[in-house]
């Protein structure tokens, strides 16, 4: 996903802060497989906050919409409601709390002296053995094949077809 940045400058400034640092890395890379893997992990922390079109009169939360959906709705909304009231704007500001990863970024923990325990230092770190077991993402059994486009695993022709039809690159959008 290449960001050309010209048509969505206004959105970008707030969105880039919103996404996880690993997501930033993923977006910067053009590697679909990395992107797919990271987006999938990020989705594991999502809430189903409701996917209906935001109505400024209802105190709604769109925090878990993915980038494209949100960008889309934002544009659609601003087209339709040119004369957005101050109240609606205030509501909108209130309903978009900053994510933990944003707060973490602002806390600038990297500047702490090395002996001070911190969120980053408490992370368990990479696995000691690099042996990764592979389970078919379609049926769950041991999988020997990797999708060349997205890197997900499948075990058989049958599962490959299901994968291609329903889930390949789903998290990349």
């Amino acid at each position, binding site marked *: 996903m290449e960001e050309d940045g010209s048509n969505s400058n206004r959105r970008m400034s707030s969105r880039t802060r919103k996404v996880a640092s690993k997501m930033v890395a993923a977006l910067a890379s053009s590697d679909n497989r990395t992107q797919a*893997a990271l987006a*999938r*992990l990020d*989705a*594991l*922390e*999502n*809430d*189903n*906050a*409701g996917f209906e079109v935001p109505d400024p009169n*209802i*105190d709604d*939360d769109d925090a878990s919409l993915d980038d494209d959906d949100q960008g889309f709705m934002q544009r659609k909304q601003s087209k339709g409601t040119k004369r957005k009231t101050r109240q609606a704007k205030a509501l909108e500001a*209130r309903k978009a*709390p*900053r*994510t*933990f*990863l944003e*707060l*973490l970024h*602002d*806390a600038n*923990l990297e500047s702490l002296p090395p*002996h001070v*325990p*911190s*969120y980053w*230092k*408490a*992370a*368990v*770190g*990479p*696995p*000691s053995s690099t042996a*990764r*077991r*592979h*389970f078919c*993402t*379609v*049926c*769950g*059994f*041991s999988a020997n094949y990797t999708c060349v486009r997205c890197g997900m695993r499948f075990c058989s022709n049958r599962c490959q077809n299901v994968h291609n039809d*329903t*889930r390949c690159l789903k998290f990349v959008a």
Partner: protein
Amino acid sequence: MSTTTQVVVLDNGGGLIKAGFGGERDPSAILPNCLHKPLASKKWLHPNPLNTPASAEQDLTSASVRRPMDRGYLINPDLQREIWSHLFTSILRINPSQSSLLLTEPLFSLPSIQHSLDELVFEDFNFTSLYVADSPSLVHLYETSRSPNGLLSKAQCSLVVDCGFSFTHASPVFQNFTLNYAVKRIDLGGKALTNYLKELISFRSVNVMDETFIIDDVKENLCFVSVDVPRHLNIARKSGKENLLRCTYVLPDGVSHTKGFVKYPEQANRYLSDGKEMKEDVDDHEEILQQQHENNRQKVDLTKNEFDLTNERFLVPEMIFRPADLGMNQAGLPDCIVRAVNACHPHLHPVLYESIILTGGSTLFPHFAERLEKELRPLVPDDYDVKITTQEDPLLGVWRGGSLLASSPDFDSMCVTKAEYEELGSARCRKRFFH
């Protein structure tokens, strides 16, 4: 300070709030820390406390969720204020300005988050005083009080493994203090497990991506930790009655039942029938069950109001042990424990391995401790014992420790008062809690 001031004990989890009064054995309220909006509702509603009958009546099919916490930390103080306000006024019925508060906070919280919490406590709710505690030290305190002559109490240390909603921590505790510098965290907890299960079911049978509450129930009732993954994978592959792992979950239909349920609970528990060795022979009763089951399976495709689970039942909790399988660049729980222990003074190593305490909702999966021991043992030097205990109630252990601390004679002197907060500000008051 007056001794008549009551202490409110609030274990403010990312998934569940446990709240009640210092000195009591159990919290008065266990409440999802969220607002939800059922399909039929235009407004965001407060969930009913789980320990009340009203909770069972709420129809949460396809309900949207808003949580004040993200990855275990408070990000939305406005929403938390709303939830606490409801909790204090309508559920606990307390007056904060006449109460003291013992509040749990996740390890490594950020100064900006601590600041918002202090504001909530003192400026929005006017509590008279506050004590902030971390979960591992409360768990340790509770467990030592339960067996004053046990190893834990003698050695004054333990390794608390808290596998909760947002993340998993292995935390060494020494003389009632959590050794922050040695704590290790895996970024996986019950929330990610539920989302992973949603994903698997949605791709394989029915779209349940919007069914957080239902899939939580599926996870809690049907998932287990495998002590032998290859063997269970083989069994899950078998067809018909030989597949001792297959079970069926019925989704709510919104008419006759608003909650989902396990279709044949006996069938679902076959794998547990005698621990590791599953019953491979199937008796008549089972056969009938199976037949009913096969008949019902034909309905499945027409109505899609139920789905089968096989290997999902153990592949989901498997993530805690091998996050790398999912593509996460993080070590699993056994390594996490070893790394936490190794970050402590070598004198502590043998006692820590002998005093591992499991707590948090995600340790409730059957066979969790057994599997952990099986994988941990080979990583620990031979001359050290490995002893793992699961808390009697892994959901309430932290709260109970808090209740104990709140009723101790020293409690008042440990708190920061509202006056001190007003004089010193958030940052300086905070220093008191962890030194």
